[in-house]
């Protein structure tokens, strides 16, 4: 009678089988029960649909949170291992590292914004010094500045991961406690970007602990290539400058001092060099890594105007002040890369873009300055793994 034996068995078991009684599809048949179940189900969805959606979203956030915790733990472990390996401390540094991971920086009051840049600059300087001092305490056997800066950067990457994890966990728990769809939805919407950032910092940890150049080091790499073979001197603070003859002009090529993880203080350094030359600078060219938009190729070069420098804005402010004071034109060259590439070990495409960027500098200088002019070329970024 039937093609499928199992159906046959079911129908044999069912008393008053609707199919046997010719009631299939009619009242009291299986389909009626199915219809009833679906109706109940529809009512459940109608009244509990949002709650169900919230559970689904929480589940997604939970998955990402587990992944984030894994990355954070690995970062912490990596930082401790690097400090132990290089610093050879006599005591257990784990509690101190844990304390460092929770460090915070309070930005200055901005109710009266006049003078806020100097305050912010001071706070950031204190923060950097404090972190470096802590690293020195945790790595007493390390006297090498390069290694100390690398360890400081490793710790900073671990701190960033710790913070990301704690913020996501905070909103996750808050969303779960209140079952507010809107809290959970906001968190779920930003999670792909947060995870991308976390993965980038995870890659950065390895690069920092080994002292490998990262994507952001492309600016210093270009400056380094330009100043190679010329005398290099230090300028305030943690920056270097070389006087390079370039297409009949004098190029003052600058970068943060390498090869340790160090961004220097480009604002102060440029200010010093401009003042040394009494403001007689024909042009300032800033070269930096820039975030690419989706669809753009890694290592693509773009030109523009303005101070190409990231961070909290202190350096950009100082540079702009000097430019306005002496009416110096500013040009920027950026090498496009993803947020993940910016802190991960440098990709070949970015490395290869350095020579092309130098050609763009050459074109810019030939087109926009005269022979005998003096100009500044600053390779902005972290000098990790880049010497001079």
């Amino acid at each position, binding site marked *: 009678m039937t093609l499928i034996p199992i159906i046959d068995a079911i129908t044999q078991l069912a008393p008053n089988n609707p199919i046997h009684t010719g009631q*299939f599809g009619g009242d009291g048949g299986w389909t009626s029960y199915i219809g009833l179940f679906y109706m109940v189900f529809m009512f459940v969805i109608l009244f509990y649909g949002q709650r169900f959606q919230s559970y689904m979203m929480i589940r997604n956030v939970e998955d990402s949170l587990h*992944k984030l915790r894994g990355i954070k733990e690995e970062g912490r472990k990596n930082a401790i291992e690097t400090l132990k390996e290089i610093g050879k401390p006599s005591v257990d540094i784990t509690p101190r590292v844990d304390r460092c991971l929770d460090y915070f920086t309070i930005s200055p009051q901005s109710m009266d914004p006049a003078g806020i840049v100097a305050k912010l600059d001071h706070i950031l300087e204190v923060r950097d010094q404090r972190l470096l001092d802590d690293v020195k305490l945790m790595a007493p056997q390390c006297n090498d500045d390069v290694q100390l800066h690398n360890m400081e950067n490793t710790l900073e990457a671990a701190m960033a991961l710790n913070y990301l994890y704690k913020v996501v966990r905070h909103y996750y728990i808050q969303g779960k406690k209140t079952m507010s769809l809107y809290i959970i939805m906001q968190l779920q919407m930003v999670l792909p970007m947060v995870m991308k950032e976390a993965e980038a910092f995870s890659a950065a940890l390895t690069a920092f602990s080994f002292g490998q150049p990262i994507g952001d080091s492309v600016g210093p790499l270009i400056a380094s290539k330009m100043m190679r073979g010329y005398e290099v001197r230090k300028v305030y603070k943690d920056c270097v400058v070389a006087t390079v003859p370039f297409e009949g002009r004098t190029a003052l090529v600058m970068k943060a001092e390498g090869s340790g993880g160090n961004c220097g203080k480009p604002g102060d350094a440029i200010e010093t060099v401009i003042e040394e030359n009494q403001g007689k600078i024909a042009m300032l060219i800033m070269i930096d890594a820039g975030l690419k938009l989706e669809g753009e190729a890694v290592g693509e070069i773009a030109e523009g105007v303005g101070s190409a420098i990231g961070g909290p804005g202190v350096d950009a402010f100082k540079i702009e002040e000097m430019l306005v004071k002496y009416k110096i034109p500013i040009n920027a060259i950026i090498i496009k890369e993803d947020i993940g590439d910016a802190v991960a070990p440098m*990709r070949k495409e970015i490395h290869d873009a350095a020579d092309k960027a130098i050609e763009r500098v050459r074109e810019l200088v030939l087109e926009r300055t005269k022979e005998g002019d003096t100009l500044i070329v600053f390779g902005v970024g972290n000098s990790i793994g880049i010497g001079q």
Partner: protein
Amino acid sequence: MTQNTQQQSPVNKISSYITLIVAIVMGLAIIALFSAAYAYTLGSEYLIQAGFLIIIGAFALGISVVVLYQTRRNATAIKNEETKVMTIIECKNCGTKITRDFQRGDYVFKELGACEKCPEQKQIITGVYKEIKTKEKTYAV
């Protein structure tokens, strides 16, 4: 390490509420599919009902499987790209170029030992980079 932390997790449970709903929908879907199969065997007059039940059953089963898969999915292991960081060493005199794995302490423009071909010339590191083998997905827009 990631898996260990997942096992210790207090939040790594599947919500019983979701599991119950999925189980109900799945059960209904299976009943609908069985009924459809049976209706099909009864002859051409029940073909419309059979088709209707197949659509409902397949749709509900699909939805429940997707939901079950999503809820049971554990946090995936961290996918760190297996890429090697390479160091490029060059001799500016004879142009010899050597590529080797990165070693701690390497940095761009670091001077190394003398070149094998020209002993008076020191080799220098001219590049440190990683090569990504996997091709990025492109969108034709």
